[in-house]
């Protein structure tokens, strides 16, 4: 370990942002984690104070600070409500990278990120193999939700998880490069690893919707993860490798917009890539800028660019089922996208939309938070589950595959009969009805 002085110096990079926090404590009212634990180190104010203390060398416990910094969903609820406009997520992400670099990664994470995630082709092969053998280790618990649980004692604990898809999207639909049709628009599709490997049907729904609207598609093979799992664990090296790899697959000149069905990917490419572009070459930085400006969530693209939902307006057919919507933090809080997914759902005449209580409250997943602090993650998720159950809906839609995993786990464990779907699936289904009529 290098000296504390050196760490304090590194943290100066976030100093200008840190001093903006006036310690008013208003973030306590929205932090889902603080609501569970009531611990000041679990809310933004406490974490910011810890970073400040480290920077000022008031105490010398980088490992303690890092632990507490990692107990965070990175949901952005605090930032979205902060009266001072503290860019909490930017600070946390940068600080995790700084502390991660300072303290070094755990051997397990090193293996996971450097040897697997950061090597997309190998990662794909390992996952394909995993999907072939997983039935030995897991058994199905809920057909409606498609969840499974571990057969034996496992590191996954009590989770009811979605198994890996038998055939990932990149095998079902290899690279595409179709020209713009009637719409005159061509989009790049960034699939994201969860959609590729766990929810390929969501990816297919995206492609179907694009075909329907005669939108050209550029979907290169060999796509890598957007990098957020590595970055939020403080592994700058793997993160950078992933960004570079993706830059090499997506030349910004090939398409008008880059769309993704993953709220986390969208906000990562839009906001985090430019934020963390400091150590890229000038040319790479420019590409990051162009790409990030073109990146849109799929529902935002469909509604704002294609005016899709408005154009449909199909007739009501028969009895309508109740559906509700969970706002992924990365869509609503980071990107301000919340009306578009709702109008996409409303475009499906089979459903009646009903808002649940606290639709924008974090589901508790938070990526690696769910792996490291499962009990807390589940406690936060239960409140979401209770709100969904209380809405009386038979389906819940959302816009992020990570949320889909968490909702499935929570609903499955509670034994609810509520289906979890991506908004784009709901919308794609409406297109079938239209074609028939």
């Amino acid at each position, binding site marked *: 370990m290098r000296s504390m002085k050196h760490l304090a110096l590194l943290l100066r990079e976030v100093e200008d942002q840190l001093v903006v926090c006036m310690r008013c404590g208003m973030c306590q009212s929205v932090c889902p984690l603080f609501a569970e634990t*009531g611990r000041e180190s679990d809310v933004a104010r406490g974490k910011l*104070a*810890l970073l400040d203390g480290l920077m000022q060398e008031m105490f010398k416990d980088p490992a303690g600070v890092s632990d507490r910094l990692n107990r965070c969903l990175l949901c952005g609820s605090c930032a979205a409500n902060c009266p001072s*406009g503290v860019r909490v997520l930017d600070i946390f992400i940068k600080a995790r990278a700084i502390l991660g670099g300072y303290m070094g990664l755990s051997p397990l994470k090193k293996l996971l990120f450097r040897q697997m995630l950061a090597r997309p082709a190998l990662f794909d092969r390992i996952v394909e193999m995993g999907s072939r053998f997983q039935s030995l280790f897991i058994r199905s618990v809920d057909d409606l939700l498609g969840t499974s649980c571990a057969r034996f004692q496992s590191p996954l604990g009590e989770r009811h998880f979605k198994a890996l898809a038998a055939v990932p999207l990149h095998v079902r639909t290899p690279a595409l490069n179709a020209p713009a049709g009637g719409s005159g628009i061509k989009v790049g599709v960034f699939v994201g690893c969860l959609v590729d490997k766990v929810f390929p049907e969501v990816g297919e729904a995206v492609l179907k919707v694009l075909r329907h609207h005669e939108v050209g598609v550029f979907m290169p093979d060999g796509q890598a993860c957007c990098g957020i799992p590595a970055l939020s664990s403080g592994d700058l090296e793997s993160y950078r490798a992933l960004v570079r790899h993706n830059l090499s697959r997506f030349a910004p000149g090939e398409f008008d917009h880059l769309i993704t069905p993953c709220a986390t990917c969208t906000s990562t490419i839009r906001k985090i890539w430019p934020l963390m572009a400091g150590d890229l070459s000038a040319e790479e930085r420019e590409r990051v800028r162009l790409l990030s400006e073109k990146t849109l969530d799929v529902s935002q693209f469909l509604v704002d660019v294609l005016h899709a939902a408005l154009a449909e307006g199909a007739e009501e057919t028969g009895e309508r089922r109740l559906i509700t919507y969970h706002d992924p933090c990365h869509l609503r809080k980071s990107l301000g996208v919340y009306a578009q997914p709702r109008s996409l759902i409303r475009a499906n005449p089979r459903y009646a939309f009903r808002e649940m209580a606290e639709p924008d409250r974090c589901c508790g997943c938070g990526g690696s938070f769910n792996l490291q602090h499962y009990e807390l993650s589940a406690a936060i998720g239960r409140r979401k589950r209770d709100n969904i159950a209380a809405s009386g809906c038979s389906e819940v839609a959302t816009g992020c595959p990570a949320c889909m995993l968490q909702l499935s786990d929570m609903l499955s464990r509670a034994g609810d009969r509520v289906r979890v779907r991506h908004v784009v699936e709901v919308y794609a289904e409406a297109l079938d009805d239209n074609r028939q009529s």
Partner: protein
Amino acid sequence: MIGRALIAEFEKLLGRDNVFADEADRHTYSYDAAVLDPVLPALVVRPTSSEGLGRSVRLCGENALPVTVRGAGTNLSGGTIPARGGVVIVTNGLNRILEINEADLYAVVEPGVVTARFAAAVESRGLFYPPDPGSQAVSTLGGNVAENAGGLRGLKYGVTGDYVLGLSFFDANGEIVKTGARTVKCVAGYNLAGLMVGSEGTLGVFDRIILKLIPIPAARKAMLAVFDDIAKACEAVSGIIADKIVPATLELMDNFTIRAVEDYGHAGLPVDAAALLLIEVDGHAAQVEEDASRVEAVCRGRGAMSLRVARTAAERDKVWEARRAALSALAKLKPTVVLEDATVPRSKIPAMMNSLEAIASRYRLTIGTFGHAGDGNLHPTILTDRRDRAEWSRVEAAIDAIFDEALKLGGTLSGEHGIGLAKSRFLEKETSRATILYSRRIKTALDPKNILNPGKIIGE
């Protein structure tokens, strides 16, 4: 330092999860919302039962450890900074609403209940708990009572202290003391509740609070009056009061604040206005109509350029959103925000506003002012960067000047934020040497080892 044995004792009492001895954890209880230097406590504990709270206080007393009780830590006067080290007792694990009595219009709560949650629970029963500090989304009722917190509705409905019917609290030995009752009238014994309200954790630790509730007013109407001269706005305030109308809320915003709010929220405020008054009247429908038109007449009579009455609930919300955004909007302009709460008799508001302007230019500082004009409680808000040493010393001088000015006008150092650490050295100026000594004698008699929030309010 606190020994391992004592920590183990706390852990046995409260559970390991509720005792924080780690340096990093303790560091997160070293500050509050005041712009003051942090001080590290030796230990932090978080009781989840009344018994745990009392025994924690007793343990501290037996070991002569300073006790700093902490609700949400939103006070603006350093009340929860553990200035003498010792133990911080966090109350947010004591967050049960024990009773809401609709027949007798009172509620019994634990001290860690969040104010807004309580207000909502009460409202869902068709009742009303008026005190609404700007921090209500996170502040606790215990903290509110200990600071005698006020809010936007103070003018007509009073402050937290006006709603405390009774209390039970732990004294410095951890013994339970009870005062007041579940009745509106009670003269049994000394008025200890009166002593405890505003005591900032220096005389006892609240365990239960009995709060008065009232019926929800049937109707309300909000309006926004625009002035091209701040003096005219202030005259309108005096005019409304003199006309014997008591609005629920009567708020003032100066031009700097108006522009900041508009830049921030685009609420459609008139950016060239010198001042705005945001007014709400409530009560029975007929009286609301009459009060509203009289308020309108007074404002026009004192030269309001325009007056907008909210016709719908959405318009009303917009008016109050603008007011609630004031601090946020100002806070976004500079890294450090010093929110003061000097309060003057209402008729002296024009003079105070003038002085604030003079102070801002004398010390070359940016000061945005808004506040509860109706009760004379202004919030001059100094925008600065604490890292700029030269400017910071001008800020400190300006704060002194603001206090001096408020006192000169017959006002007070604090309308609602308390004295804590931040203003304890000024208290003698407002009162007298004898007052401080008298207060210290009370404190010494009740807390001979001086363990309850030592150093706060009356110094040492």
